């Protein structure tokens, strides 16, 4: 009974702690929250597996845009579970709020994390276009439990009335910003980041060059949709799901040698490298001479140490810059050797524009972005942008390859968020 002291009711005297405009309040101060569909609250309309799957997906969708993780816990004592969900009809689950039968109120949420669904409603799985989508209602009620109030903003998942959804239920930009206002945005270091070039033919047969941006972390990755300023819906996913024949986790670097005569893509990890076949979407097993991959970096790129921190290919100079510790090695791909004057200190080749504002060593990734036509050095949750030609046209005094002061990665690439490992393969 104590748990139901207060439905999410901004009653008299109750004021949100920090009521930003359109706000809400942070409801949980921890990063990983547990949830459970309570045994006495199963719906009679869908199989238990379906119900649990839909709730797992609903929690994952919030996890994809916040630093929060959600873990289904079937064993811990009920009182320790952060969010408990259940179905009921009329008077239900010890709740003082009586459901009204089918129509009108279809669910409600309590501040301490209980979510109840009116089992007299016709709840349906995401694949159905009939009835009331349980996924949509679950995402809405979880939004409440996390601290978001109702809004009448078109397109928001937090609208009070049920609006039948098209095939793609997703959290829109404003919902993402609202929940990030309460829990912050996602931070974290990446193993590597790169743009992947695709050549396609349009209807007239012209070759079009497109690119997608990828961020890799541990054993999962995101595709970042630059045009939409967010990651692809449903990411992150396992590396092995999308990339075949490369290591399953902790890649060090990706390099794409792209000239008029060469189009070679390499992944690096430890002291080995793999070549990737873009057309067949898998790593090469052997090279043209029949030698098998992976190969030793020392053999394919003489003079380059390993393991590497990262690397990127400079198309104009036709050089690969390999980074290790505080040093950088410039590798000439045409002569297949390190330039005589290298290795050099990274701070010497890429000087700081603002004194001391420099990563100095052990960067996570050196990433050339076609969207921004710039190289970025990523380290932890920060990035340093390298001066490009456009910068120098506006400010000629800028040093060649200078580094602009650091900025937050999450302020430029949005919603690159982890999800709980148990939901990675959803």
């Amino acid at each position, binding site marked *: 009974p104590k748990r139901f002291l207060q439905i999410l009711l901004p009653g008299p005297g109750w004021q949100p702690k920090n009521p930003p405009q*359109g706000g809400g309040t942070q409801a949980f101060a921890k990063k990983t929250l547990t949830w459970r569909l309570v045994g006495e609250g199963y719906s009679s309309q869908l199989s238990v597996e379906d119900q649990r799957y839909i709730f797992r997906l609903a929690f994952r969708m919030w996890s994809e845009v916040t630093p929060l993780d959600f873990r289904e816990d079937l064993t811990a004592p009920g009182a320790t579970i952060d969010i408990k969900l259940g179905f009921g009809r009329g008077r239900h689950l010890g709740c003082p709020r009586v459901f009204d039968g089918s129509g009108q109120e279809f669910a409600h949420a309590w501040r301490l994390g209980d979510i109840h669904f009116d089992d007299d409603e016709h709840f349906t799985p995401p694949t159905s276009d009939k009835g009331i989508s349980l996924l949509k209602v679950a995402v809405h009620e979880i939004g409440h439990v996390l601290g978001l*109030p109702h*809004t009448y903003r078109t397109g*928001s998942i937090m609208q*009070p009335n049920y609006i039948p959804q098209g095939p793609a239920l997703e959290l829109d930009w*404003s919902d993402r910003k609202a929940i990030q206002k309460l829990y912050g945005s996602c931070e974290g270091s990446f193993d590597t980041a790169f743009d992947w070039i695709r050549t396609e033919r349009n209807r007239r047969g012209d070759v079009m060059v497109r690119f997608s941006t990828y961020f890799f972390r541990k054993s999962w990755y995101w595709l970042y949709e630059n045009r*939409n300023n967010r990651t692809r*819906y449903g990411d992150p996913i396992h590396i092995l799901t999308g990339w075949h024949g490369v290591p399953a986790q902790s890649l060090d670097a990706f390099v794409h040698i792209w000239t008029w005569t060469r189009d070679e893509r390499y992944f690096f990890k430890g002291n080995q490298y793999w070549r990737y076949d873009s057309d067949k979407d898998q790593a090469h097993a052997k090279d043209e001479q029949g030698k098998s991959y992976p190969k030793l970096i020392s053999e394919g790129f003489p003079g380059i140490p390993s393991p590497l921190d990262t690397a990127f290919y400079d198309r104009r100079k036709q050089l690969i810059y390999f980074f290790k510790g505080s040093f950088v090695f410039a590798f000439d791909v045409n002569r297949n050797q390190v330039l005589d004057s290298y290795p050099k200190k990274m701070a010497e080749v890429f000087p700081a524009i603002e004194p001391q504002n420099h990563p100095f060593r052990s960067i996570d990734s050196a990433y050339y972005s076609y969207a921004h036509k710039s190289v970025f050095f990523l380290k932890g949750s920060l990035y340093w942008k390298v001066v490009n030609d456009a910068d120098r046209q506006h400010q000629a005094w800028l040093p060649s390859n200078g580094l602009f002061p650091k900025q937050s990665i999450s302020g430029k690439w949005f919603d690159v968020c982890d999800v709980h490992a148990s939901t990675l393969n959803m």
Partner: protein
Amino acid sequence: ETLFHSRDRSDLAPSLLRRATPIADLFAAQRFLSKYGWADAPPGAGSAATVSRGPRPDRSREGPPGTALAAALREFQKVNALPASGELDAATLATMNRPRCGVPDPRSQLRAVSTAPRTPPSLLGRRPRTR
């Protein structure tokens, strides 16, 4: 299996008897507005949490809504893109009867509709693909 508890599985059949009582008159509308945070509870209807179970006053004594209720109706109509007449018309009743979440609507939030952050400028492009 689809879960059932009674031997004859009668609890599986949709409970035709248990439909939400349609909101069809001023008193029910006032309860709705009070339940979801738009107005105070109608006299004699108890607290918001119990509003659905208070005794229904004699219908013959219903007159036009009072100013407070009319104001609440008007605000509700405005936010739901209905003509803000303050009168309990059919469109307003239909909106009140739509399926909705049981959590009340804090009014301060609703005013935020026009100030919510907008999507940043982004390149036009194909519709996002489904998950």
